[in-house]
């Protein structure tokens, strides 16, 4: 399921919507102080919870990535020994970081673009109100509500070799030439197996969001363009998509982050194999920290992971912003 997050845009919109409704009576200073106090009290639980369970652990982890932190540090509560960039260079020299970044990139790129394409197609079709659209719209959401670990188990069974459904279909469509196709066993196909499972799980939510975004597209402009003789794809690209800009921005960046963070699917389907073909940054950091008990190294991977993710979202935003400038 998508991990909720707040986009920068959301934040900005929030503050914008507030200024528009600044109809509060002119505040006297004592009232303002009381407001401040009240506001603080209301925010306190959220601040405490997020600081203790999100912010501090993150800072802690970044610090840990520069130390030699092993099992005994954990058991005996000893602080790690500072070792500058040793964890990073060790990972880099072994080629682990580069390969994990590449695989993570591939996974995120393909999952997000395919999810977007499929969802957009589905949303466009459902938006034309075919018979039973309401029903389809709600059964469509089933994959989204199925827990990720169960999604993994389900697809593990579909890909199973032998006896799996996919293997049988390949057998059938290859006219019996390919007899033991193991989607997750081949170096070239394993990542696609996970991408497909991720697609299955994420298409429903994005379709739902895109559909909602389509409601905001003014009907009359579309109609006018149609009368002017603009064909379907012209209307799509020049009217519909620009109108849906903010929905697309939010749902795609949500999708990017969600897939950057994906771990349970890898854990249930491949555990990083075969031959490291699905070892993403998530799998690598888990392996370093919890399989090899080298927590400093695991933290180094996650720090890189965070940086890469921020960069990816930033690049996406940048491209999006520039396009916006052009169309405007």
């Amino acid at each position, binding site marked *: 399921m998508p991990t909720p997050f707040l986009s920068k845009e959301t934040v900005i919109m929030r503050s914008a919507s507030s200024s528009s409704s600044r109809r509060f009576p002119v505040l006297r200073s004592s009232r303002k102080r009381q407001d401040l106090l009240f506001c603080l009290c209301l925010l306190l639980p959220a601040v405490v919870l997020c600081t203790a369970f999100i912010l501090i652990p993150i800072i802690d982890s970044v610090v840990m990535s520069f130390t030699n932190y*092993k*099992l*005994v540090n*954990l*058991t*005996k*509560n000893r602080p790690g020994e500072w070792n500058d960039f040793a964890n990073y260079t*060790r990972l880099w020299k*072994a080629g*682990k970081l580069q390969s994990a970044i590449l695989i993570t990139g591939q996974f995120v790129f393909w999952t997000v673009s395919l999810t977007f394409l499929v969802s957009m197609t589905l949303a466009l079709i459902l938006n034309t109100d075919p018979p039973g659209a309401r029903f389809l719209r709600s059964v469509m959401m089933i994959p989204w509500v199925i827990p990720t670990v169960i999604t993994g188990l389900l697809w593990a069974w579909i890909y199973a*070799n*032998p006896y799996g459904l996919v293997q049988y279909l390949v057998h059938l469509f290859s006219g019996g030439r390919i007899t*033991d196709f*193991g989607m997750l*066993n*081949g*170096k070239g196909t394993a990542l696609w197996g996970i991408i497909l499972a991720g697609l299955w799980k994420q298409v429903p939510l994005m379709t739902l969001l895109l559909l909602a975004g389509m409601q905001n597209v003014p009907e009359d402009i579309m109609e006018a363009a149609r009368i002017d003789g603009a064909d379907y794809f012209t209307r799509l690209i020049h009217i519909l998509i620009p109108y849906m800009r903010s929905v697309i921005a939010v749902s795609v960046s949500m999708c990017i982050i969600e897939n950057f963070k994906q771990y349970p699917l890898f854990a249930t389907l491949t*555990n*990083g*194999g*075969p*031959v*490291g073909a699905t070892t993403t940054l998530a799998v690598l950091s888990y*392996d370093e920290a*919890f*399989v*090899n*008990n*080298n927590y400093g*190294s695991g933290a180094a991977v996650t720090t890189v992971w965070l940086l890469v993710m921020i960069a990816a979202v930033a690049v996406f935003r940048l491209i999006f912003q520039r396009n916006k400038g052009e169309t405007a």
Partner: protein
Amino acid sequence: MKKLLALLTALIMLLSAGAVMAEEKEPVTIRFYNYALSETAKADWWKNTIAAFEAANPWVTVESVTVDYNSMIQTFTNDLGSGLSVDLILGEVSWIPALVEGEFIQQPKDVIDPDFYAGYYDYVLDQMYYKDGVYAVPHYYTNSVVFINKDLVEAAGMDAAAFPDTLDGLKAWIESLDAFYKDSGKVSTIFGLTTAEVPATGSNINAMFTAFGGQLLTDDGKLADLKAEPNATAMAEMLDFYKYLIGNGYTQENLKLKDYRAAFGAGNVVAYVDSSWGYAQIGEVDPKAAEFTVTSFLPTTMGTYGKGESLVESHCFLIGDGLSDGQKEAISLFIQHCTSTENLEGYLNNIGLAFVAHEGLSGCRISPILEGAAKGVSHVRKQTQIGPMVSVQKQLATMVLDYTVNGASMEDAVAGYIAQAEYYIDQ
């Protein structure tokens, strides 16, 4: 004679228990972390064994704690942190380095009664050596066992008892069975070797490497020189054997042991290599599998240098650090209680098939299924434990897949392995 011996042992135990009681022992509690409790048959056995022990030693309370394989480190860290003691653990050999590094466990020789300790077979104890000493005692052990479907072999007109003794003989054996079953669609695997990238497969491949005459780790816990002899030849011959099996479809790539166990139980596998206790899952698929299952040890001539030796795998007792004298005595008694013919025989025959690792158990009956493999039982080689053992062994599977399936040259596959293994060892 055997019965007399057993009676005598029982008498001695009874007497010692009596003596203990007479001294009015301070009551002690042992917190016993056991990873076998999630399986019903094993859990029942442990429950009964512990109950019997507590009845004989009323001053001891054994408190069982289930520990999951995947989260054991967190479990121990957590419990020690919150003031619970970890007194005794039933685990695997591969846990030793992590537990020593975390300063969880101590050497059993300081806890277990010296006379009893002396009874453990050295070649099994040797496998539990880490850094400065032996850190566990075996409950029972296994080497590499070839499981053979007698019915399938005999249907092909061959003698199941005559398992080949050389690598060439094995290949001929495989080929004639393949010729017989090729078009029947009945048999999926002729000779199964696991190559999935999981810890169990890693140790299985390491054992195959040993069988081909190789030695993966030096005695001081470094990666052995895989480019020097006999390792280079052993490695080359082993890789070619895997390629031979996978390339010709005698075995599947990337299958786990559990896959072979299920398929063997379903009657689709002629033979495959596993630990002795893998039988438990075979029996789960077909309760009557004992009728068609026989075993053997690996051929004693495997390539140029190979003598078919294998490595020991064991379920073993690991003893917690910081015990009181009373707890030490109780643990010593408890381990002896669990490692007695009277208690262990039923387990080794019905629940987890395995071989005994203590001379006091020499009278213990071994499951008839293991009869064929039993002759090769002490044919094992010592291996030093190292911290990153799990990853270093798991990478073996990656190397095999690289060479057999992914088209890497032998040099590249081995060089890749060395780089990975050294990465994990030098941390």
